[in-house]
């Protein structure tokens, strides 16, 4: 039985350059800051960064798995506060956890935390999940 304050188990997703390429192809977002290190640095970024929407898609997977599938997610929002930095040859973590913040008829609202290398990457991340 779900209760307000229930903590949902933390989960780690691993992001590498290959995943960024696959996400670029699947989403149509071919912005070179997500694939080309020289370009990313030329516009003042420390390195290639993950698409904010890839981060959100992975958090969406976390929420979907808790809710019982993609169809369970009714509302989903987040602010992109810091980029996930993806150096060549590395797998960087996206560490996700959540708490049930409210019970509503037929579902629950979650407040979600997402960090990479200990840095908060999403702010105000929330979802409404239908059971």
């Amino acid at each position: 039985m779900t209760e307000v304050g229930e903590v949902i188990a933390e989960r780690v997703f691993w992001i590498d350059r290959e995943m960024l390429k696959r996400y670029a192809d699947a989403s149509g977002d071919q912005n070179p800051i997500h694939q080309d290190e020289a370009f990313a640095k030329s516009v003042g970024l420390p390195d290639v960064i993950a698409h904010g929407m890839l981060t959100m898609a992975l958090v969406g997977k976390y929420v979907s798995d808790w809710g019982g599938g993609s169809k369970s997610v009714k509302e989903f929002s987040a602010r992109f506060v810091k980029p996930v930095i993806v150096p060549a040859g590395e797998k960087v973590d996206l560490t996700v956890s959540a708490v049930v913040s409210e019970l509503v008829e037929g579902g629950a609202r979650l407040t979600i935390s997402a960090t990479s290398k200990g840095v908060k990457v999403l702010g105000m991340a929330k979802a409404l999940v239908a059971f």
Partner: protein
Amino acid sequence: MLNPDSVGRTFHGAKPVSVTQSEISAFAEVIGESDFSVAPPTFSIRITLEQSQAILSDPEVGLDWSRVVHGDQKFEIHRPIVAGDVFETSATIESHKVLAGNEIVTVRSDLHSKGDLVLSSWSTLVVRA
């Protein structure tokens, strides 16, 4: 700088957008989702962000897309997207403000199928000074 007259305007997609199974499957595979029967919750960004770019970059609207970063994102999903869906698309520039020289624009995108609203998506975009 965004043309202030464009705030509040709604732009309709020139032609309907169809969703294929291979698009849903490819998107799902990237995030490790093995159920391809419905689209993952954020799949619609594939449709709406490109449309927002086209609208906002139009010389009449005047946003400099090359300096855009995604500030925040929200979805309201009335039913999941499935293969074979054909959407009428529209996008409304809901707000525009300038903070410390950065422009902040919120665009709401709606996907309708056979007259029903399937999904609304709000993208807040920041144009760096």
